């Protein structure tokens, strides 16, 4: 086991040891490296001012570049990667032979900065998209920038800067950088377990699944870290001391999605971004909702299994996954068990997970669900935690509903099915009125709370309306859209009577 970590920073190899295991990349950059271009705007992964780009090889060996929030990323998570910060774009590492980097120049040309504090983060989000060759088009630039807040410009000039960068041509200086980056990463690759820490706390990154499981079974009090999009906040926001952290991200095989004819098996370190690549083509309905889950940065770090394991009552994924009939696999040492995901969530803050047991897989049946629909209601459209999340699916036979799954987040202490609604629907005709009538029973299923995201009244009313909305879609093909071409065509022909 190595007690130091190795990664590339702006083209230079770094060996880091003897710092607290909970040191965030942002604090390390700003305090230890005096690289102050990356800014702290929130320390919770919401504003994006700290965005840096992390390059890693995919399974096929090709590099991918992910924008991440350095404020909630632990330094140990960088083992074997290549990090580029805003300073790196201006140095020989990434800069063109003369002048500013094209991404930086576009921001200047389009007047994309005013106060300039958010600007390094925007530059790095655009840089990641520019590297990956996707995310700079009119239909996806909002996703690219959803994790970066700007309070000055109103975004239009930044969007224009991004759109101006869309190009399939990779300049020579960038080709050379990528070759160099690939060789630098290859040169530091190894298979050892690593740890980083001091007398305050330790960050341990096992390399093998058996080692991970054994360690956790042996020391069930350690904190498992996956993407740190939640655990990172325990440190930055709650100032919690986590004496030992055990990271899933380096474990060989943990980042795999195994696919066979019947199911997808999602490993503990699979990020939302990676999962979305597999889920989206199978269930397009999930794609749009997952696209609004966190931000590009959060989806690049956060993991599906982590989202489940931490048992958030709101988490947008569980309702969708429960609707899909997903199962969770829990492992303790060498033993594993499986249970339906809905049974995993016992009560608020409580999951069916014994000491030493960890979420080792999420198993999703790959059957297509033509009647699956997902709805996410939040105060802001992008990058906001839901007030209400709904994922609904039915089966029917000859116009009679035979089965229904109506799963809600934000309505109870755990993601939960609306059993009264489901029971009512079974045996009813496949007609909007059935859903309108079923929706009235939602009040029997849930007594939601009032909090800063929405009142109990709003949650109940909106969740009921979502059931009607679902009925309109499934029964009459009415897709309620606020904008875009569908908004006109689907609504202009509307003739449905409101069910009484």
């Amino acid at each position, binding site marked *: 086991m190595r007690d130091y970590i190795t990664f590339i920073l702006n083209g230079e190899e770094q060996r880091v040891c003897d710092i607290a295991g909970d040191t965030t990349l942002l604090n390390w950059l700003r305090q230890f490296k005096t690289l102050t271009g990356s800014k702290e705007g929130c320390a919770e992964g919401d504003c994006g001012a700290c965005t840096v780009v992390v390059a890693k090889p995919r399974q096929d060996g090709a590099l991918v570049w992910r924008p991440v929030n350095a404020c909630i990323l632990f330094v140990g998570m960088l083992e074997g990667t290549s990090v580029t910060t805003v300073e790196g774009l201006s140095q020989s590492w990434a800069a063109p032979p003369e002048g500013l980097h094209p991404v930086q120049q576009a921001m200047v040309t389009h007047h994309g900065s005013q106060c300039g504090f958010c600007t390094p983060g925007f530059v790095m989000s655009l840089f990641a998209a520019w590297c990956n060759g996707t995310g700079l088009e009119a239909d996806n630039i909002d996703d690219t920038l959803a994790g970066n807040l700007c309070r000055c410009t109103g975004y239009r000039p930044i969007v224009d800067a991004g759109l101006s960068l869309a190009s399939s041509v990779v300049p020579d200086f960038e080709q050379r950088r990528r070759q160099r980056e690939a060789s630098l990463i290859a040169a530091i690759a190894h298979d050892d377990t690593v740890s980083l820490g001091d007398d305050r706390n330790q960050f341990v990154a096992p390399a093998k699944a058996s080692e991970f499981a054994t360690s956790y079974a042996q020391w069930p009090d350690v904190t498992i870290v996956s993407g740190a999009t939640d655990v990172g906040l325990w440190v930055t926001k709650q100032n919690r001391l986590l004496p030992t952290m055990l990271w899933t991200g380096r474990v060989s095989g943990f980042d795999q999605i195994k696919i066979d004819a019947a199911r997808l098996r999602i490993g503990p370190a699979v990020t939302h971004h990676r999962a979305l690549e597999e889920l989206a083509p199978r269930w397009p309905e999930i794609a749009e909702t997952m696209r609004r889950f966190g931000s590009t940065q959060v989806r690049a770090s956060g993991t599906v299994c982590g989202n489940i394991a931490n048992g958030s009552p709101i988490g947008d994924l569980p309702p969708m996954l429960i609707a899909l009939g997903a199962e969770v696999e829990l492992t303790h040492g060498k033993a594993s068990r499986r249970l339906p995901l809905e049974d995993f969530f016992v009560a608020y803050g409580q999951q069916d997970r014994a000491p030493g047991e960890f979420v080792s897989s999420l198993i999703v049946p790959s059957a297509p669900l033509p009647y699956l629909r997902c709805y996410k209601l939040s105060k802001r459209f992008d990058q906001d935690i839901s007030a209400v999340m709904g994922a609904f699916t039915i089966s029917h036979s000859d116009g009679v509903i035979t089965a229904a799954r109506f799963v809600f987040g934000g309505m109870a202490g755990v993601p939960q099915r609306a059993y009264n609604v489901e029971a009512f629907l079974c045996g009813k005709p496949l007609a909007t009125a059935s859903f309108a009538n079923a929706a009235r029973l939602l009040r029997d299923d849930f007594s939601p709370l009032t909090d800063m995201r929405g009142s109990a009244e709003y949650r109940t009313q909106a969740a009921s309306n979502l059931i009607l909305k679902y009925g309109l879609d499934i029964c009459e093909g009415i897709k309620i859209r606020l*904008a875009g071409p569908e908004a006109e065509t689907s609504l202009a022909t509307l003739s449905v009577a409101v069910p009484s």
Partner: protein
Amino acid sequence: MNGPLPTSQSLPGVTGIVHSRQSHDSAHKHVTGMAPYVDDIKTPNNTVVVLIGQSTHAHARIITMDLSDVISAPGVVRVMTAADIPGRNDCSPVHGDDPVFADKVVEYLGQSIFAIVAETMQAARDALAFAKVVYDPLPAILTIDQAMKEGSFLGPSATMASGDPDSAIATAKHSLTGRIEMGGQEHFYLEGQAALAVPGEDGDMNLFCSSQHPTEIQHKVADVLGTASHAVTVETRRMGGAFGGKESQGNLPAVTAALAAHLTGRPAKTVYDRDDDFMLTGKRHDMRIDYSVGFDSDGRIQAVIFDQALRCGMSWDLSEAIATRAMCHADNAYHIPHMRVISHRCKTHTQSNTAFRGFGGPQGMVGIERVIDAVAHHLDVDPLVVRQRNFYPHKDNEESALAHTHYGQTVSDSIIADITEQLVVSSDYHARRADIGVFNKANRWVKRGIALTPVKFGISFNTRFLNQAGALVLLYADGSIQLNHGGTEMGQGLNTKIAQIVAHEFGVDMGAVKITATNTGKVPNTSATAASSGADLNGMAALNAARTIKSRMVDYLATLHAVDSSNISFADGRVLIGTESLSFAEAAKAAYLGRVQLSATGFYATPKLHWDKDSGSGRPFYYFAYGAAVSEVAVDMLTGENRILRTDILHDAGRSLNPAIDLGQIEGGFVQGAGWLTTEELVWNDAGKLTTHAPSTYKIPACSDRPLIFNVALFDGENTEESVHRSKAVGEPPLMLGLSVLFALSHALGGVGSVAYPDLDAPATSERLLAAVARMGGPGIA
């Protein structure tokens, strides 16, 4: 896609650098991460950090405060309480009512009661948990309704009036009464409050602050340390956003850093993290406005009475001036002959609300725009008709000489009718409104709405003495120029504009002008960079300084070359002297060798202003800035979700000093205003704790919230007053263009088909919209 922008090419008769599109002077540093903010400044190794300990009660007596375990915690250097202050325990901007550390009674949850001085922030955070404070809770007043009911005010209510509104309403053909409530707004500058204090010799203190008001920080630090202003120097190079939130709210971090530096003899830094920033600092005032209006069947408004109650929080801060501006903007762009505005300054046990872009003006305007909307609904006409019918007369109309506001100022520069007419055409308003009518009849589940709202915003500080500025221009013998002025750079491009003004005056390239940090040691007694006045005041002061140097050069060169001074001109980096020509650098060198003083201060005080605070009348504003926006929205009737489909803006920046920068102010201001009125919701719980204290819970607009189609153009005109190059202030006015979104949402709700008025409060969250849909008998599950 944006509308045409006036450029120097399209403005006849204008050459040179002013009126041209120039990038922000720090743009290349912003994009490379090389623009330092306070927390980026390299500090000596012995620098300590300051963490403020906050009250956990909204209103309570402090019985005991035991910090002994804090002091003994590892890495803690010392703690600071009220007893450690050598001077005055106050950091308020005006009224002396903001203690640095509350020592007997706490008046909001989050209030500063002590501070930890530590080697590292981790040590300070770890130690914070060891503070033992015992409180005796007192009843807390949290809301406007509670304050109004219990008579909790900071001072007497104020009134502004014209004509006889009571009789006019009584005799009007129609009358209406109503109420609108609007929430506050967190500034959410991306850079939190930050100050670094470095002790000097003889007890001097040097500070680097993220502040709109270095002079006030100089004064407050001197007060707290019990020293004179000359011992304190404050420097501000740039802020990572401010929006009014760093006018007075930078005082506490600065004085705590200075106090720590004073007590330890070490450099000290106070930097708020995001949650502390939310909990400690004031926000935009939330407001409740009751109205009565009398009008005729044509929609002509005879009289309005407004009762404005604003939540000031636990102390005055700048609330008196903010309340006054809210009163002064209760007319917006409408000439209402009979009007009375009453203002109640509610004291609550919450953060002390403060300046925020618009400074009360936006709240006042929401009141009158709501009245217009309600009147139009009552008469079943397009609100635009009511708006146009009540506009102040056009500046070229002789009636404008008689058009007085309710505070007695003549509105002689109105171009709102022109702007509106042009915008109605360019936005295709009438056809789109007709289309929306058809759409809403055909669609049950989505309703659309459109609204045009105007802006007339008074430019100048209401407080007369603040309308002054100074500058210092240094011309070196190589022809390079160092520029300093009293304004601060917060992203608005002030330094760029003033460099343009100075470069233009000397006829040199902007590259010849070095912009330097604002520093109380260079230009003293400055006003806050606020009230949109930065370029107007400091630009004029810099222009005056440049003119002083230039005229000395002209006098000298005229004598030297025996030409009349009228034959000397500065252009294209050269000085033309009769038939001869010198490079600007040669001319500077010649003047230096001729022993001509090449440095000058410049000063400016806005003319024509007078204001009688007691009667609430006078001419508080040098001129008005105008603009208008048309927004179209769509609302999901089952969820309240909504989207801005299109916004068209035509805005008056006078003869713009820099159309690129002004465009940025307009677009950004609009989006910020729209955010205030839609998704930005501050929530306090019953204990008075702000529960929305980070971006995870407080939602400013994100990228996808900007209008899907966004057409923004500058109105082609110039200031009728002699402002700097006939430009107009542009910082605050565009924020109020965001009102078009609120009233477009109101229009969309009207599409439900009910005869009831939507009575929409702000922020119009999805939740509020869905509740309105339900009230109006919309299509959801009953």
